[in-house]
């Protein structure tokens, strides 16, 4: 003798991307704000101190934006030609920028005119930055040199001419005040120590290096160039740790999130990929309208700012987290009411009388158990089930069909209910997992309600919608068949003769399944 077996709701494998913690986290941004700049945005840098303003370098201007402002708070525009790489100092008071004409300018954030101007490089300076002792600046430019400048004196300390091509990126170590890194189009990344006369380490990236990044610990180096993002272990003498090839165009910018757990890379292929720094797998990705040149993430991941080739600045703010106040208001029974008696250990002479396990059935199961088919169908057509778990509705319909009572359950409904049913069928009939069942349901509904067609405008409209949905699906399947035919021809030309046999079979199998779908 068996107990009642509840309806089996078939689980289907989830196709498409899986929902993970990461996807939930990175999806938690509002719709982006678009700000038009004058030219391609080559650098975005967040001030490390609140209120986390950010400097955007585009064309010959540097704009400072506030957190939520759509208009720049401040503009530095005294460049004759393009400005490059406006970077904040660690305390957020000073800003340095390179320029096309070759000078490096240092600004006070509150002032307007440059505090210092370092003239020396004859060609464009594409990368500048502060060393972590705050008093020195490093730079790299199109004259293949990497230089170090002293802020108080405004003079060059040392210049390294080791690169053999344009220097396009660099960064300073946060751990050691003397160490900085530059990447160049000569496919190398070089590590310099201000105390020595030459480079300390040279890493061969293999492609023109577009961006370099040091981890918070200073031990790991990330370089981007070509389609590759490579992670190197500096402490092991520049050993390649992992090479990531997830973009299909040149990777232009890199960025770490505030916790250092995720690495972001932007590319000309319009995608931003987010990697976990433990597994180096892509955990999420964003896509944008045009090629990405620069990318920055505010402290605490509050804002993602992406600059693009067409001069559009895309700003995404994080949604404020919802607080669940309602649940706190409801007073829960005390903990001891739950544990009351649970901890009692039966003694040897005690008789244990166990409570029979109560099987809790869903509402539709209860109704099915008592053979109330019509009511069971009503129960699964309630909004929460119908909208969120249509597979339950379909499973109950299938069960009713199996019991031979589907027709009577569908019959005898009023205009509103038929409308509901038809809406549901029209929406889901094209989903392959539901097709087989819903086709039967649609057949039965048309059979049962044929005599009343024309009496209600609402129902008639739903019937038309159903027809439309099925027509669309048939067209779609036909198109797919055409594509498949084309692919078959391609496969036939590509595959070698020995492998031709199984390949042919495989494609045959595929065609047949699709054909049956069409028939449905």
């Amino acid at each position, binding site marked *: 003798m068996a107990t*009642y*077996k509840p309806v089996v709701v*078939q689980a289907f494998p989830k196709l498409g991307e*899986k929902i993970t913690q990461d996807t939930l986290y990175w999806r938690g941004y509002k719709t982006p704000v678009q700000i038009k700049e004058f030219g391609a945005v080559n650098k975005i840098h967040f001030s490390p101190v609140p209120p986390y303003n950010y400097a955007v370098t585009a064309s010959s201007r540097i704009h400072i934006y506030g957190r939520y402002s759509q208009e720049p708070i401040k503009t530095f525009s005294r460049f004759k030609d393009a400005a490059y790489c406006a970077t904040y100092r660690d305390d957020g008071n000073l800003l340095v920028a390179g320029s096309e004409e070759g000078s490096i300018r240092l600004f006070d954030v509150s002032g307007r005119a440059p505090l210092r101007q370092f003239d020396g490089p004859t060609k464009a300076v594409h990368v500048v930055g502060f060393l972590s002792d705050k008093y020195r600046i490093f730079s790299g430019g199109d004259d293949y040199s990497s230089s170090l400048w002293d802020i108080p004196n405004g003079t060059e300390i040392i210049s390294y001419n080791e690169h053999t091509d344009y220097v396009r990126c660099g960064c300073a170590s946060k751990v050691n005040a003397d160490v900085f890194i530059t990447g160049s189009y000569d496919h190398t990344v070089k590590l310099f120590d201000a105390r020595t006369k030459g480079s300390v380490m040279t890493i061969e990236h293999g492609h023109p290096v577009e961006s370099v990044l040091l981890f918070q610990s200073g031990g790991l180096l990330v370089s981007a160039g070509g389609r590759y993002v490579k992670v190197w272990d500096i402490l092991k003498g520049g050993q390649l740790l992992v090479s990531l090839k997830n973009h299909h165009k040149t990777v232009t910018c890199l960025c770490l999130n505030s916790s250092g757990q995720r690495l972001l890379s932007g590319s000309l292929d319009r995608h931003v990929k987010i990697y976990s720094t433990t597994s180096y797998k892509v955990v999420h990705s964003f896509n944008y309208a045009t090629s990405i040149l620069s990318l920055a993430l505010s402290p605490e991941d509050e804002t993602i700012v992406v600059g693009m080739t067409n001069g559009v600045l895309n700003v995404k703010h994080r949604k404020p987290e919802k607080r669940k106040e309602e649940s706190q208001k409801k007073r829960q029974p005390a903990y001891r009411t739950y544990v009351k008696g649970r901890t009692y250990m039966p003694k040897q002479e005690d008789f244990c009388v166990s409570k029979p396990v109560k099987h809790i059935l869903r509402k539709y199961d209860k109704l099915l158990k008592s053979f109330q088919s019509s009511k069971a169908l009503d129960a699964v057509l309630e909004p929460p089930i119908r909208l969120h778990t249509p597979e339950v509705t379909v499973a109950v319909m299938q069960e009713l069909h199996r019991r031979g009572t589907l027709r009577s359950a569908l019959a005898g409904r009023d205009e509103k209910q038929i409308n509901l049913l038809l809406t549901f069928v029209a929406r889901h009939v094209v989903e392959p997992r539901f097709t087989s069942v819903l086709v039967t349901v649609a057949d039965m509904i048309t059979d049962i309600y044929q005599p009343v067609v024309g009496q209600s405008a609402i129902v008639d409209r739903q019937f038309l919608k159903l027809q439309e949905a099925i027509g669309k699906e048939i067209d779609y399947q036909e198109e797919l068949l055409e594509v498949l035919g084309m692919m078959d021809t391609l496969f036939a030309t590509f595959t070698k003769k020995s492998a031709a*046999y199984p390949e042919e079979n*495989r494609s045959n199998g595929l065609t047949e399944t699709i054909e049956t779908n069409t028939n449905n």
Partner: protein
Amino acid sequence: MVAPAALRVVRCGGGGRLCGARPVFSADAKYLLCGSGDFVKMYSLATGETLRLMGGHADLVTGVQLNPHNHMQLYSSSLDGRIKLWDFMDGIPIKTFTVGSKLLALYALASCEDSVFVIVPKNGERDTFQLVSVKLTKAAGQDIEAKDLSVVLDDVDVSPKCIAFGREGEYVASVKDVNLQVYFFKRKQLNKFSVSVMKTKGGNHNFTCVVCHPTEDCIATGHADGKIRLWYVNFHHKREYTFSTLHWHHDVVLDLAFSMEGTSLLSGGIESVLVLWQNLSDRQKDFLPRLGSAVEYISVSPDGTLCCTLHTDNRISIINSNLRFSRSIQGLIKSRDVKTGLVVDPRTKALVLNGEPGHLQFYCLQSDQQLFSLDIVQQQYIHQADLKQVDLVKVAFSAQGKWLATVEEREEETDPELQLKLWFYDEETQSFKLNTRINTPHDDQITDMCFRDMDEMEDDSLILVTTGRDCVFKVWVIVEDTDPEAQQSVSWSCDFVGSYHNYQATNCCFSEDGSLLAVSFEGTVTVWDSVTWDLKCTFCHPPGKIRNICFGRLTCSKYLIGATDHGFLCCWNLLSCALEWSAHLNILVLQPDPLSEHIAAVSWLSKESSLFVFKPNEPRPIYIQRNLCKEKIQLAAFVPRDEPETAGSEKYLWLRRSQLFFLTDTQELMTLSTRSLEERLTPSSKQLAVEESLPVTPFSLLLGKHRRQQSQEDIDLGKLIVHNKQEQDSPAVKELLHTPAHVLPSASFLCPIFIKSLLISKENKSAEEVADEVEMESEKAEDDSDEERDVTEMEQEDTSPSELLGEMTCKLSKYQEKELRKIRKMDYSWISAF
């Protein structure tokens, strides 16, 4: 016995269908007796075990009734025209009464001293039956002719449910079609009623069963339209009657039973729900739903505490009086159609086939018990006529029994609903767990399925192949799930789809080493390489489609055997790719023995089945058994034996390592055995001798053994426990208590001895000595029980029992001590092991 080694066909499962007769409770409600094929079976109600199998009838047992005058005796009737009287406690046939004609039902009444009632076919007519009373003469001798028949009622229904006897045997009620007739024995008056006169509005009013109230003049009848009518007949006036209708069943009422007091009525039908009508009214009814299958018979125990339902699928459910299901007795469950074939579970060596609808039963052949029933479909079974149910159609086990693949199917007008499920054997729960479910694995019915059978290679090489009517065969492999959050690490997915000229794939089979796969496509057998999935070669033997294929094993692994539906058995050589030999035989079943090269083939020719056993390397069969049975044989399976049988003759060497079982059209499970039926039965009856009146469960046997062992150990270890002490003086006390009072000496004389015997003997005795005494005492006790002593002897002994004890101890102590030393030596080593 003609020849000791003659191979004969034996029906297994301890008899056939249980559904021949209504089961009967013994008077003390401890046993249940029912007819099972040609046997009468006795079950213990406490444990559900088969206690006794009483064989002697030559045909189906149709009636089982307790002797109303002796509750230890039992009448049984059979289609062979005999009534047998049994002592069922001992399983001895007491008397056999030969009536002559077929007996279709048996009724025994308390009021009729020396006669029973039986339904027999009317002389000369084929389809009319009559109720006759048979006088059972009290003549001496085993076999008695009972020719004294007197007709009671003419034109009765053939079913035993259609006749019932009223209170104290005053009247008999019989129903047939729409007529109810009541015959009074005393007045010799026959009243007839019919239903159709009263109601003509729709529905089928035919009677299906009748029962009489135990104390009142009330008859309950069940009808084909699901109604139950209660007739209150005023028996003094011929034409006055009233009836009330109880209606719950939506289909035929198959059986009814009144409770012992008559306050409530039980009814059952094909809905497989037992309905209890309280106070015989419509208002209050209780249900026991989901009993598994249609209720065929209901019977109530004499003390009213239990009732049991016998189901059409050969199962008995025992139900408490408060409608609580208490236990079920089940052997081989008969499903409507065994679609899965006979499969042997490699783990338990149990036979696996369709059980209850949607279930897979694991049937243990040795103990004739169902080991367990695996719910495959996992859907509520709705008992309703012409409803298309989900059916289990194919089953396959992997070599170690680690994986189980099942296919279920529900036929529809357009295309069948198919599901392929893969189950993993979970060592922890000791049962199969669903791993993967594949919806619509093929677009049409699946015709065959097999695993790649390789013992040495584990999961990584496991392959499942399914063939379908949709002209393809598919290869399924295990894939590791990459998602770390998934619940299971592996699942199955399709790896390859193969087809051959758009022919329907009908059979598939892997070679022994798993390197080749043979798939038959209608008339052609194709052989594929199982690594690259290249088509290697094709064989065919036109005309006719391939019915079965199998590879040879061991030394014959280079052969491929196929049977066509045009009556040819062909053997192809895989090395030369040529036909080795062929034979003209209409083979229905082709079954290779997994442990040897032998292949069994069952042919069907001119209404008889024959068995051929052959080796693929020679076209001459090793063994032929003509006329295996009259029915068509559907399926066969080789079940490996636990230990190889010592075969009597060269001829039966092929039966040495495994046993051949086959299932006929009528779902009888048969086997071939060299031993006769009596030999086969003896071991079970020997075992039964142990259990006298109390039911012995395997657990209590185990516990008893354990306890005995434990007490033995206690003695061996020299531990002295107080209860041992008491045992020690028990013989003296026993002697005292068991002697008849009139031969005992006076109490004043006995008292000191008795008290002395209760005293704990010498304090300074070492543990060894005491242990000696214990053993010796028990020896003495045995002596006592063996010998019958004279009074005089006993008196002599009584004078000095304690002295005698002492003497005996001295005599034996030296020998005993030696023994003990030995034991002690052994013991120490044993202890150190712990």
